[in-house]
């Protein structure tokens, strides 16, 4: 392997690793707060990329229908819950938020799409459309199951994953998409070439990771999420509702997934079903951190990225095999070294 190739592979590995790190952090967070192993994490990446591609092509993204449908379902359930607990006055507000938001966004897309081709606008619209799907899914699927075992929650997560894959196929079709790059510039440093899109990815990922860190370290709601993860009963006793924490953690996961999709769109061709493998690689990273440690999860995800690009060069047919085989020594090492966290259930 020449030096040039090594640089190229490292660059690729770090770029993908940064994205996997984002996903791994979201997976750890969601698991800590809700005990859900969030299989659909990768599907949010795909939803983000496909929605952006469809906006860039000048179409109204089919994700808007999904948003409207989920909003309607959540609105209905919440309205019934309000009536049952005798808070009839809140029904109007609930319906207004859950249905009004998707409809307003719809109108906004209609109005703005012909006016502007700005990448930033499209990215913002994508975030506005895809991120609210996270909390809605939590409300519909996982909140009613909040007391269930990890296994039941996992099964529900897998069901959500398949539903999203099917809806992606229905909405976006079987063709792969690639979104327009943020910039085509290539920097030359000495004899190395660095694609600016890769720089963007690493930079935005780093910013998002720092932002998440600050959110948990400084913001009251971030601390409330951690508190729920550490001790649910304690959190309830100071008035932190587990439902709120669940929705919030799913919102963070959806945000992270969508940003990853927007970043990944220009460098990878994504299909309706690409999400599973992407999410799984983030999951391998999260496993390195024992689904509990954020820095270890991020480090593990970087390792996954590097391993993937390395094995793509040496044995590209076995790329995925090599990456997922990493999980075996990691599990062995963890089972020998760390005390058992799984038996808390």
């Amino acid at each position, binding site marked *: 392997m020449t030096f040039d190739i090594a640089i190229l592979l490292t660059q690729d590995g770090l770029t993908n690793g940064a994205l996997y790190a984002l996903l791994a952090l979201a997976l750890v967070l969601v698991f800590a707060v809700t005990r859900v192993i969030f299989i659909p994490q990768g599907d949010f990446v795909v939803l983000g990329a496909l929605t952006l591609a469809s906006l860039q092509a000048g179409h109204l993204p089919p994700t808007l229908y999904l948003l409207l449908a989920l909003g309607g379902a959540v609105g209905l359930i919440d309205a019934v819950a309000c009536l049952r607990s005798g808070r009839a006055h809140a029904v109007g507000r609930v319906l207004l938020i859950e249905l009004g938001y998707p409809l307003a966004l719809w109108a906004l897309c209609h109005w703005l799409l012909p006016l502007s081709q700005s990448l930033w606008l499209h990215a913002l619209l994508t975030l506005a459309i895809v991120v609210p799907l996270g909390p809605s899914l939590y409300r519909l699927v996982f909140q009613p199951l909040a007391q269930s075992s990890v296994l039941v929650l996992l099964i529900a997560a897998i069901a959500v994953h398949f539903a999203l894959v099917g809806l992606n196929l229905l909405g976006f079709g079987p063709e792969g998409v690639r979104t327009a790059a943020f910039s085509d510039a290539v920097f030359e440093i000495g004899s190395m070439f660095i694609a600016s899109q890769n720089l963007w990815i690493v930079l935005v990922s780093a910013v998002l990771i720092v932002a998440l860190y600050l959110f948990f370290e400084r913001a*009251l709601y971030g*601390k409330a999420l*951690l*508190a729920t993860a*550490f*001790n649910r009963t*304690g959190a309830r006793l*100071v*008035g932190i509702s587990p439902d709120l924490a669940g929705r919030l953690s799913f919102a963070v996961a959806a945000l992270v997934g969508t940003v990853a999709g927007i970043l990944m769109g220009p460098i990878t061709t994504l299909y309706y079903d690409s999400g599973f493998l992407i999410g799984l690689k983030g999951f391998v990273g999260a496993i390195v951190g024992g689904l509990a440690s954020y820095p270890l999860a991020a480090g593990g995800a970087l390792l996954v990225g590097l391993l993937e690009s390395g094995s793509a060069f040496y044995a590209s047919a076995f790329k995925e095999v090599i990456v997922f085989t990493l999980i075996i020594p990691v599990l062995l090492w963890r089972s020998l070294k760390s005390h058992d966290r799984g038996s808390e259930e």
Partner: protein
Amino acid sequence: MKPTTRSPLLAVDDLHVAYGKVEALHGVSLRIDAGRIVSVIGPNGAGKTTLLSALMGLLPARGEVHFRGEAQARIAVEQRVGQGLCLVPESRELWSEMSVEDNLRLGAFHRSRARAAELRADLDEVYALFPRLRERLRQAAGTLSGGERQMLALGRALMGRPQLLMLDEPSLGLAPKIVREIFHIIATLRSRGVSILLVEQNARAALQVSDYGYVLETGRVVLEGDSRVLANDPRIVESYLGLAKKAA
């Protein structure tokens, strides 16, 4: 609102709580007036912790519970916290991984719209009450001693500015000196207008600090009255205050 002359802060009527098919509380009734300390004493397994958990909404219960005149039946734990009800459970339920100060600040979570200065003042007040917490404010809660953890649990509860503070065995497992300190603090809380429902096995200390007492045995209130009267009741003296029966 009930048209009673003076509606109590908390009114419990005929409360039943069951774990599956096994009923642990068989129709408990009690009332707490504002500004008072009420104790519930009784042996292990009498249902004291069950009573508090049910009042907080952690356990499903049958019967009437009115807090500040409002029925609590359909209200979730978090909403009860918002109304001014607060439980310090026997297990404390602190966040051992987080710092002392974070634990305290989260105690005011449901008041997150309050002004920062007000929260700061409350924090200082808690530190004034428990100077040892100020010394350890950056330390993880898990590294505290048993007494300090109880102080942190009390401090966290006070940060929520509760109207009614429910304490489950605050003296359990603590050294006698710390127990005296904790009960001293409970007595000073009353002067700040906090009403307290105190559940204790340490009947002597509980009756000393409280105005009114209930005796709970196997899920029923078997005796109630002014704490001073209860403390001299021969049945109480014999079974709970640990004095040997006087020879006839």
